Every structure is written in structure tokens, then in C-alpha cells.
């Protein structure tokens, strides 16, 4: 079977053209279904557009070091936009009625999942690449990262604390351990204190644990303590925990025993908390917290790889998200972008992230010699995708503006395809083209609009569009139609336009004539007869009046000749023109000719008399 197809904006037409026809032939129209969550996602596109444009404006000359905080803040802006979108989607997903089609509901929750993943990856990239935290701060940032993405702990903690007897709550120990795993010692202590108050006899054990938790050193990046000093302190504490373990201090309570093992950094014990950790990267960060809090960025990947292997086990292959995160821990930026492009198939994400990384000058430093090409490639892809949307295309324009190599030509090609449904839309498109000196696109759009107006017999509109297109030939054509109409109906249409042509009149001779001719009529209407006559004369003298209209012009002159103010000179001139016309066209209706001759003669006579009586 032959399968034919044709590209469309936003859809594809596919048709079967069999050798043998079976039934009625079909044309399939394949297009995206826009209904799913799109108004909310549209907000994402809109707001990220603002951030993007703001980012482009950051001056190049400021040294990178000072810009780092700016970039981090921009990164946080992007992430907050993602989170806002996610929350709204989540709310929306809850709102669906049972009638909503299954796939639609699924679509919303899928979008939420994807956005979560995106934010997770983005956040990690911010920590590792943009903020580029050094050893000491690195772990703190990673802890924040994990905490942000494992928010169910807070909910559970609240639930336990708000219950009647927290210590008896079934999730009690899970909450304590979860908090410890996340390095939230103060909160863990707070929950633990609920237990301690109940069992007075074991309170010393709980006090011991409380001290351990309280004394755990946390690196303060803004403080005066150096990393080495911190490391020493931490080792002391670590030894203390180990002593407690060896002394079986907590043997009476298996939960406390588990906790001290975690504090000591026993990997097997931490691994046993798989369910509470739920992800290998949580395991990684927890592991680092209790074994190697001064981890340096280059050493991260070793722990990342082994954590993933240990957590997932031999049977479960890593998911795409896992691979991406691993690449990030390995500081393989290119791989992260590549894997994100493939796995997520999401141009929005990679385009904005890569653009930000490019501004941070990170793409070059990671040895991507095609760094700038990659950024432009992705931004172009994203923007092209926006273009066929009936309102989002305007955002795309800004993106193209910031693609130095191909942005302009992409914009040129795509903007002329925008359907010009209304004049308003056409003018919007035009303004964009005019601002960028895309003169060919301007001309083309105006010509299309002019042609369309002419087809629908809207002469005024057609004329103003051809003037805007600076299309002299078309303007001439339309002017002739105006004149034809005048000859047929005896009056002009679109007086407003004709009266206000201004210098645009000069676009073509015919148009100039049309404008002046209308002016003549106006002058006549205002009883400014001598001016009118002079104008009429100049029209005939200047030879821009089409020959075919000369008789009409002279006929128009007829009533003028009755007016007293018309001077001899003028009448003589008119008469000579009349003679020329008569010579050229012998068929002129004789009554008309006679009338004209009579009027001319009378006027001449009057003028002579009048001029004769005026004192010279």
C-alpha cells in the first residue's frame, strides 16, 4: 500500500493510496490533543519565558564570580515556576470528575510526575554545577536537595506529633529514623522527647541518644571553622558514637540501636532502611552524611555509583532518571543534557537548563567545543515547537532573537506561515517583522492581506495594505478600481482613507491622481471653486490623469465653469484640453460636447467681462 502524507502546521495528513481501492478513501489527520493540562502548562511556558529573557539581558562584562549568585537565583526562579505549575496540576488532577476520560486524568498525573523529575534534576544541577558548592557545603546542599524531594516525612511527623500519644503511634520510630536519615537532628530529638517522657527508667538511655544527636557537628560554611577543624570534630563525635555502639549502650532498645548504627555510618543498617529512604540517592546522601561529610565534588561519583548499585541490587536495572542523576554526580554535563533530551523528550527543560548552563560558561569548561551550538540547537527546537500554538508563538519570537546563528532565519520562515485570521493578528505579526527589519516578510504579509481584501471587494482595506507593502503596481491596480467604481456609481467609497493618504499618495501615479481627484471633489463640495479648478487643471496638465478619464474630468469641470471665480486663464486652459480630448476621441457624445463648449464659451465671456471691469 502506498502511504502518502503532507506536513501541516501542528498536524500531519496521511492518506492511503492503495493499488486497489477498498471502500471509501480516507485522509487521516494526526495532531496533538491540546486539552490535557495545557492552560496550566501554558503558564509554565509564559513565566519561564520571562525568566529566559531576563537572563539574556545580564551583561557579559561583569566577571563570572559575581554573577554566580545571580545565576543561582535565576535557577531558583525557574524551579519555583516548575513547582508552582506542579502544584496547580496536582490540584487540577484532584478536580477531575469521574466522567473525565481516563487518559486525560492520567495525562495530568503524568505531567506532575514528569515535572517532579525535572525539578529534581534541575535542583541537582543547580547544586553541583551552578552553585558548585565546595566540600563541606556540598553535603549540606545535597541534604537540602534530598529533604525537598522527600517531603512525606514532614507530613508523617506532623501526624505522629499531633496524635494522642505520639510514642505509641505506629509510625513513631519510622519518623524518628527518617529524620535521622535526613540529618534533621533537632527535629528527631523533638520527636524522641515524646518517648523519653513516658518511660522514666530508660530515660538515661534516651538522654544519651539525645546528647549524641545534639552534639553531631554540622559544618557552617559562613563560620570561622575550617574544613579540617570540622573534620577533626566530626571524627571525635563519630568515635563517641562508635563507643556507644561497642558498649552496647543502646542494646535495650532495638530502635535506638538501629539509630546509633546509622550514626556510625554502618552501611548495612542504613541500607536496611530502604523503604524509608525510597531512593538510592537518598541512600547516597545519608551514607555520605555519616561516613564522609567532607566529601569533595570529584569524589562524589564513586559513592554515587556504589550507592546506586547497593540500593538497587543486581536485579533491578537503573531507570532513565537514575542514569541522568548518576551522570550529574559524575559531572558529565553533556551526558546529562543528552540523556534528558532522550529520556524526557522534553525540549522545554533541556533548552532552558542548557541556556542557563551556557550563561554560566559551564558548557565550554566541560570541553564541549560545540557548546554554543548545542544551546542554540535546543532553544531553536523549543521555540519552533511553540510557534504553531495560536498564542504562544509570540513567546517564541524572543527565543529566536537570542539565537545568533539561525534565530533570524527560523523566525523569518515561521512567521510568514502564521495564518492571518484577522487584521489585528496581521498587524501584530507585522509589527514584529517591522521591528526586526524583515522587509521581505512585511511586504509579503501586506501583499497577502491586500490581495485578500481585493478579492472580497474591500477596496479601502486593499489600498491601505498595498500602501503598507509599498507595492506600487498593486496600488495602481486598486486605484483604477476605485476610479472605475466612481465612474460607475458616481461617488467614491472609503472617503476617510482617500482624504488622509498624505505622502503615501506618491507611491504610484495612479494613486496620486486618485488622491488628488478626491481632493478636487472635496474642494468643490466646500465651494472653493477656483482652487478646485486649479487642481483639476494641474491634474490634466501633469498628465497623471488617465486618458480615459479626461472626458469625465472635463464634465466635472462643467459646473465649475458656471462659477464666477474661475479665471480666464483657467478657462482657456480647460478649453485647450477639451480640444485635445475631442481630437483624440471622435466618438464623444455630442450633447456632452455641446454642453461643454457652451459652458466654456459662457465662462470665457463672463471672465472677459469681469476682468475687463476690474481696475488694473
Amino acid at each position, binding site marked *: *500500500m*502506498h*502511504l*502518502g502524507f*503532507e*506536513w*501541516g*502546521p*501542528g*498536524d*500531519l*495528513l*496521511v*492518506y*492511503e*493510496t*492503495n493499488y486497489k*481501492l477498498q*471502500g*471509501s*478513501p480516507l*485522509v*487521516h*489527520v*494526526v495532531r*496533538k490533543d491540546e486539552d*490535557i493540562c495545557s492552560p496550566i*502548562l501554558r503558564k509554565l511556558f509564559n513565566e519561564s519565558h520571562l525568566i529566559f529573557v531576563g537572563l539574556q539581558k545580564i551583561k557579559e562584562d561583569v566577571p563570572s564570580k559575581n554573577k554566580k549568585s545571580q545565576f543561582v537565583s535565576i535557577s531558583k526562579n525557574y524551579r519555583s515556576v516548575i513547582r508552582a505549575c506542579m502544584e496547580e496540576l496536582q490540584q487540577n488532577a484532584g478536580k477531575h470528575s469521574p466522567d473525565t476520560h481516563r487518559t486525560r486524568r492520567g*495525562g495530568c498525573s*503524568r505531567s506532575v*510526575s*514528569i515535572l*517532579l523529575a525535572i525539578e*529534581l534534576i534541575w535542583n541537582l544541577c543547580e547544586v553541583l554545577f551552578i552553585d558548585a558548592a565546595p566540600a563541606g557545603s556540598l553535603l549540606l546542599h545535597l541534604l537540602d536537595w534530598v529533604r525537598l524531594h522527600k517531603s512525606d516525612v514532614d507530613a508523617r511527623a506532623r501526624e505522629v506529633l499531633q496524635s494522642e500519644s505520639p510514642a505509641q503511634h505506629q509510625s513513631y520510630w519510622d519518623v524518628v529514623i527518617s529524620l535521622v536519615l535526613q540529618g534533621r537532628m533537632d527535629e528527631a530529638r523533638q520527636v524522641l522527647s515524646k518517648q523519653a517522657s513516658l518511660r522514666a527508667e530508660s530515660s538515661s538511655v534516651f538522654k544519651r541518644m539525645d546528647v549524641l544527636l545534639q552534639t553531631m557537628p554540622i559544618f557552617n560554611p559562613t563560620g570561622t571553622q575550617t574544613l579540617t577543624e570540622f573534620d577533626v570534630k566530626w571524627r571525635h563525635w563519630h568515635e563517641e558514637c562508635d563507643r556507644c555502639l561497642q558498649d552496647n549502650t543502646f542494646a535495650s532498645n532495638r530502635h535506638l540501636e538501629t539509630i546509633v548504627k546509622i550514626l556510625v555510618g554502618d552501611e548495612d543498617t542504613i541500607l536496611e532502611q530502604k523503604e524509608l529512604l*525510597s531512593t*538510592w540517592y537518598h541512600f547516597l546522601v545519608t551514607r555520605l552524611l555519616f561516613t564522609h561529610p567532607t566529601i569533595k565534588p570529584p569524589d562524589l561519583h564513586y559513592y554515587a555509583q556504589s550507592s546506586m548499585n547497593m540500593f538497587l541490587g543486581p536485579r533491578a536495572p537503573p*531507570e*532513565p*532518571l537514575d542514569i541522568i542523576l548518576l551522570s550529574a554526580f559524575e559531572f558529565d554535563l553533556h551526558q546529562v543534557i543528552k540523556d534528558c533530551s*532522550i529520556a*524526557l*523528550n*522534553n*525540549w*522545554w527543560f533541556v533548552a532552558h537548563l542548557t541556556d542557563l548552563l551556557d550563561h554560566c560558561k559551564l558548557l565550554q569548561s566541560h570541553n564541549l567545543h*560545540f557548546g554554543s551550538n*548545542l544551546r542554540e540547537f535546543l532553544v531553536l*527546537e523549543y521555540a*519552533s*515547537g511553540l*510557534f*504553531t500554538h495560536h498564542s504562544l508563538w509570540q513567546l517564541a519570537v524572543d527565543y529566536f532573537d537570542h539565537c545568533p546563528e539561525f534565530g533570524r532565519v*527560523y523566525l523569518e*520562515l*515561521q512567521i510568514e*506561515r502564521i*495564518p492571518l485570521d484577522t487584521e489585528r493578528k496581521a498587524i501584530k505579526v507585522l509589527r514584529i517583522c517591522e521591528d526586526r527589519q524583515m522587509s521581505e516578510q512585511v511586504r*509579503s504579509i501586506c*501583499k*497577502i492581506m491586500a490581495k485578500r481584501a481585493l478579492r472580497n471587494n474591500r477596496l479601502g482595506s486593499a489600498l491601505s495594505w498595498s500602501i503598507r507593502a509599498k507595492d506600487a503596481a498593486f496600488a495602481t491596480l486598486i486605484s483604477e478600481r476605485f476610479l472605475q467604481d466612481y465612474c460607475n456609481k458616481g461617488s467614491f467609497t472609503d472617503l476617510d482613507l482617500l482624504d488622509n493618504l498624505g505622502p503615501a499618495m506618491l507611491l504610484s501615479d495612479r494613486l496620486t491622481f486618485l488622491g488628488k481627484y478626491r481632493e478636487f471633489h472635496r474642494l468643490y463640495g466646500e465651494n472653493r471653486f477656483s482652487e478646485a479648478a486649479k487642481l483639476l487643471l494641474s491634474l490634466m496638465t501633469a498628465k497623471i490623469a488617465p486618458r480615459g478619464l479626461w472626458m469625465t474630468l472635463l464634465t466635472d469641470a462643467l459646473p465649475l465653469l458656471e462659477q464666477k471665480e474661475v479665471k480666464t486663464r483657467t478657462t482657456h486652459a480647460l478649453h485647450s484640453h477639451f480640444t485635445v480630448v475631442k481630437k483624440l476621441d471622435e466618438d464623444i457624445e455630442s450633447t456632452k460636447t455641446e454642453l461643454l463648449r457652451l459652458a466654456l464659451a459662457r465662462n470665457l465671456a463672463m471672465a472677459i467681462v469681469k476682468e475687463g471691469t476690474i481696475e488694473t
Partner: protein
Amino acid sequence: MFVARSIAADHKDLIHDVSYDFHGRRMATCSSDQSIKVWDKGGNGEWTCTASWKTHSGSVWRVTWAHPEFGQVLASCSFDRTAIVWEEIVGESNDKQRGQSHWIKRTTLVDSRTSVTDVKFAPKHMGLMLTTCSADGVVRIYEAPDVMNLSQWSLQHEISSKLSCSCISWNPSSSRAHAPMIAVGSDDSNVTYGGKVQIYEYNEVTRKYAKAETLMTVADAVHDIAFAPNLGRSFHVLAIATKDVRIFKLVPLQKDSSSSAPTKFEVQVLAQFDSHNSQVWRVSWNITSTLLASSGDDGCVRLWKANYMDNWKCTGILKGDGSQVSGQPGALSGVLGSATAQSALNGLIEYKHLTGPGRKKKKLEILPLQSNYGWRSYFEVVTLKHFLYF
């Protein structure tokens, strides 16, 4: 998600060509039933047939729109050895109310002695020019000197390509650095003449079209040919639908502008794909030349894309015959990576017949190839949407 709708085209015989207008709001279909239908897309995205009329006395092979600067103009070509230019006239008000429009025949080009196999308008910067190619190998280039008078066309050039022609494509480049160029494909079974793609170029000095290049490596019948949009590049890219999909790069070699000889080209093969595993029927570029689509006798439409390193790969397949591709790999996993996998979501799209007895559900699949990971998302759909974008 993707939605595929089928329009019962109401032609009484096979459809041979479908053509969008410049803005994608109208389309024309032509058929062996000798008629053309014009469809308009409403605000709600629904297509309605606004005109249907008998055009030729034989199967209509191709239909094409002129640039809207010239008005609403169509050209069609047929087995009946003619090519015809049609113009839409604004009808009476009651016609408008019924949503019907009228197309009138402006001119019939009868110079061909054999079936006219393709008809294309030249790029608009060349004026209003129409090109036809015929089964006897003659390519004709006509011009309407007065764009307001579509009934006057003069035959400007006649090119004898010596091989039965099946398709033509104009190089859309409006750059002054490039002379007008047209590629002609042949489905001739004659094996003596090796190259089935010929490229002709207009020479300013001789004021004629001369053959600039024959692609000798294309020895099998060519069904479709398409120049990519130029994007201001110095070289040209040409896609060919033959027994496989081929993409050529033509680099013009330096030439003296006062020379009467055609430009010489360095020809490189950018890509060759035989995934259709059958004759490739159509090739078509999107507007930014970043995506090429091809359709073949295997009943699939494939999308091809080059990454930023200029490596070409297939990025999507549309299956039209309703069968499901088995063994879809991968499963959609939870966001947090190692959580338990959810059930796989295939790119299955259901569409319904708009008309026709009963409510048959056919499946049109879209399978992005690099989804070994099985990720599906709205954004992926958005990207596929990107792929289908201009």
C-alpha cells in the same frame, strides 16, 4: 496525547495527492475520480469540504497551491495530458452562507503529449511561474507575465530530460547567490541512463536552463523529490524517495558569474535509510528543514532528524495500517526512579471514523524510537508535536 481523526474524503476513487495551502488552513485533495476537493479548517479544527468539482478527464495526479500573494490559486495535473490553473472566486452571499466557494478554470496547459505527472509553482520571488513534468520526459516552465490575469501563461522553457519524469522540486532559496534550480526525478525503468535525478539550473548569460548535475548513484525509480528550505546556507540539501530515503548535500563549486556553463557541484550523501524496507513514496521537509518525513509501501510514515552534530536518525514512526507493533519495550516508571514500574503506556492513539457505518476503531501508533526507556510524557507528546511542526 495524539489524536488522529480520519476524514472520509468522499472521493469515489483513490486519492493521489493532498496539499496544504501556505498557512495550513486549507487543503486540496485530488483523485482518480477526476475531481478535486478543497477543504477548509474551521476555528474548532474541523475540516469541511467547501468545494468539489470535476477537473480533468483522467486521474488527477497532483494538486498544488500557489503562494497566497497571488491569491487563492490551485494547479492540478492529470493523466489526461493537461495541467490546469484554477482560481477561487468570491461567490454570492447565499453560497457563502452555505459555506461553499467556487473555483473557475483560468487556463489549461495542453502542450504535453503524455500524462503530466507533477505540477509545482516556482518560488514566489521568481514571479508567478508554473512547472510541469510529463511521462515523456519533458519539463515545461510557464510564466504568467501579468499576475492579475491568470488566463495568460507563456511557455518560457522546455527541457527534455530524456527520461520519464515522475516528480519535480524547486530549490526554494531566494538568495542572489543561487541561480534558480530545479530537480527532476524519474521513474523510468530504462537502465541505460543511470542517474534518475537530474538538476537543472538557470543561466543568466544564456537565459536558459541547463543540466548542472545528474545523481548517478540514484539508479532506481524515483517517486518523490524535495529540496530542503535553504536557511541562508551556501549549500543545498535534497531528499529523494526511491527504493530508500536518501539525503544529498550539493555544495556549489566556485564559478565565474559571467560563465555560460552551469555551476558544478560537489555531491555528498548525508544519509541513506532503508527502514521502510520497500519503495518510498513521498518525502517532505518541514519549514525549517530540521525534519524530513517519508512514507513508504510498508504503510508507515517515518520522521528523520539531524542532531546538532548533523547525524541523521529516525525519531518517530507512524503506522497507518492499524496493526499494533508487538514487543513494545520499556515501561513507564515512577518519577523517583527506582519505585515500582507502572504499566507501560504505548503511544496508542484511537481514532474514529467520522462517517461510515458503525464506529470502527482503528489504531494509529506513534512510536518514538529512542524510547527504550519507555518514558512517556506530555512533553514527549509536545516534542512529537514539535516534530510534526513546521
